[in-house]
């Protein structure tokens, strides 16, 4: 298994390189000059040239990219053009909030989604199924900021139960995590339902039923377990994207995560920050995928790692 992990990590290198290259090129293609954003608009041409040289922005792009890569290998992502502080330090300050929100959101989404999906599948084609699925469907049909503003208004202003902005206590986590969790649970519920139905119709479940096993045992022991593989995949995809920060939710609830940092970096044309975040997001993606693949093995002993 260790060899498998190492193999996978080696295979991830091209992906990581690709992501950094794509982000590097896109960031440099974007109009807008970080030096002009940094200096006064009427800074002298001399000042601009000086700063450009100091930041290495006057070098050819391939050289700049190589510098970025070798810096990253040494653990040095450069300094943010906006704040002048190390990119790594700025990201490290924002990561805990992003991780916390991602985990809390999934902590709500996974049980809720799987529960709804199982209930709907167990009562297929009854009103329970329809109601559950329409609810689940609503979750993916509403613009997140629309729901968020309504939640803020109802729970923050009208009922005055929860704080609406910031991250200074566990109470601050509730609204963003619920918003995120509800949206994510919808996808999971639908995935679980269709997976369950597929398994319930398969031969071995029919056999189990024929052998006289009770409905519940069949449902939970056989069907659910076999449904989990695609569900885990979806969970992986969702966590992967949550780790990149969820800009709209962070923006709305003033949550200090990576998403806001990334959008701010694009607006300020903060090249080093953009590249640093790109690298981090790619890492997160690769890591989550690896973990998902390892979980497959736990769920299905037929899968062997080689």
């Amino acid at each position, binding site marked *: 298994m260790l060899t498998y992990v190492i193999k996978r990590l080696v295979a991830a290198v091209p992906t990581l390189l690709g992501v950094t290259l794509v982000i590097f090129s896109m960031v440099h293609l974007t109009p807008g000059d970080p030096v002009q954003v940094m200096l006064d608009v009427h800074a002298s041409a001399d000042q601009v040239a000086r700063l450009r040289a100091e930041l290495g922005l006057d070098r050819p792009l391939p050289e700049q990219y190589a510098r970025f890569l070798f810096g990253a290998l040494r653990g040095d992502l450069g300094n943010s053009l906006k*704040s002048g502080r190390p990119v790594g330090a700025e990201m490290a300050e924002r990561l805990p909030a992003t991780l916390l929100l991602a985990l809390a959101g999934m902590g709500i989404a996974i049980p809720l989604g799987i529960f709804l999906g199982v209930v709907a599948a167990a009562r297929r084609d009854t009103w329970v199924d329809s109601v559950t699925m329409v609810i689940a469907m609503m979750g993916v049909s509403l613009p997140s900021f629309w729901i968020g503003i309504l939640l*803020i208004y109802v729970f923050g202003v009208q009922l005055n139960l929860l704080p609406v902005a910031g991250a200074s206590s566990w109470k601050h986590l509730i609204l963003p995590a619920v918003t995120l969790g509800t949206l994510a649970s919808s996808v999971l519920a639908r995935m679980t339902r269709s997976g369950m139905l597929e398994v319930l119709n398969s031969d071995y479940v029919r056999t189990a039923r024929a052998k006289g096993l009770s409905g519940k045992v069949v449902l939970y022991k056989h069907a659910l377990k076999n449904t989990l593989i695609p569900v885990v995949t979806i969970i992986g995809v969702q966590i992967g994207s949550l780790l990149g920060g969820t800009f709209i939710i962070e923006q709305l609830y003033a949550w200090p995560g990576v998403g806001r940092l990334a959008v701010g970096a694009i607006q300020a044309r903060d090249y080093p920050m953009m590249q640093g975040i790109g690298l981090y997001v790619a890492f997160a993606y690769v890591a989550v995928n690896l973990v998902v693949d390892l979980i497959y093995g736990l769920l299905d002993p037929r899968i062997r790692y080689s």
Partner: protein
Amino acid sequence: MATRKWIFGVSLLLTGMVLLSACSGGSKAGTTPADGGGSKAAGESKQGGTINYGLSDEPDTLDVQKSGMAVVNSIGWWIGGSMLAQDPESKKYVCYLCDSYEVSADGLTWSFKLKENAKFHDGNPLKAVDWKWTFERAQNPDTKAKNAGALVKEVKSVEAVSDYELKITLNNPFAPFADALSTGFLAPLSKAAAEKEDYGRNPVGAGPYAIAEWRSGERIALKRNPDFNWAPAFYQSKGPVMPDELVFQIIPEEATRIAALESGDVDITNVNYQNVDRFKSDGTFEVLSIKRQGLGLFVIFNLERPELQDPKVRQAINSGINRDAIIKSVLRGFGKPAYGPLPEVYFGYDPGVEQTGYRFDPEKAKKLLEDAGYKKGAEYYERDGKVLTLNLFTQTSGTWKAASELIQADLKEVGIKVDVQPYEWATLTAGLTNGKHDMSLMGYTYADPDVVYLFLHSSQIGQGINWSKVNDPALDRLIELGRASVDPAKRADAYKQLQALMIEKAYWAPVYNEEQFFAINKRVQGVWMHPTKGLQYMDASVQAK
């Protein structure tokens, strides 16, 4: 989202940015202590408590010399203090970190006697050598100073005559220098602290509040400086301040900020125009306002475009904009139409522009276009078979976006096709610098009418912000005359002529001047509005919840 506020150059705020921050503007509505009214600290105000402020933009750094953001000027001032401060009543610059100062007759030599009891938060005394170091750091190219660098451009030398005597010599008389010395950008720095790692997050100053904590993306907490007792004379309190903490909570989204104010999560925030009346009539809040120290909104033209080289076309656009309707919809009536390049709060403002400036007159606009050789086609005016089409750069949200849509609709009625192009700020300024615009919305905040030099002098084409590409020797002469005149009467006359010329040539289409509103939970007492510097937390106190 795109409401990041940068101040460029000599505290020039090119507002893409709907919101002024607490560093600019002027006001009659605010309550200053001398009025005796409003929510001054009552006699029984107690020490303790926290003031929570809902802040839209997070500062880039609190190393004030390295920032150009309005919010840094403001927060930096409460931490750092400044040599001078502007008296809210007389508008004169009085001593803050000095006991007295004098300026030589030629305006070149500034001598200060420093306060001997003032000291930095780290306990070090604030002496003349610290000021010398502060100025020299701002001038050192390695510092890459932003606003501070521009503010000290005319400084020739700084001399520590004794421990508590400072002499600053200028190259040329520089009218805005007194104001520069009252900004947060030129707060005194403690060398020992400023040379430490990560100083921008751990600033040290000599102001009434000291940094307690900065949690990235979340909050900046300031705490009471218990040693502070050197506030300028116009405050009620000499210090230290009453509240334990002044916390700036970073809430970028406007709807959330307002909700946080209503739910009591924050005590103070700026409120958008549609909410002003509601907060005014709500007994829980007090609403203060400040007029912008600058021109709120105007349209600049790119004079390199053949269509816009014809003054008649520019005049037609000026006549086609319904300023009153824009003020009513976008500002909900909290503004005044602008007719000239300078705001009424400025020295040298000529009230005559209100008579001579362009008024909404679509028929006149059509006639001007016909005089310029355009013929009305099916929907729009045309010349040589080409429809008169112009793009208009604007921001992606807020007042600029709404105003651009109204201008587009107004000019469509006249018969000019406008292609509105919203960009976020970095893209917008890059486009202007590269001359991709036909027209663009613009706004500024500045301390002095000399702002026209930056926007309109021919030397500022290309590398500067003369994005209109105005190159008019007569205008250049008036701008230079205004800069160099020491005699106020002469200076005022130069600006009067300049305003008349701007209207005659219609180089800009001024739209409006606005006020900025802040709602304050009455739990917090004694916060008042300085007419040019914004909200004042010196005399504030907090009632227990």
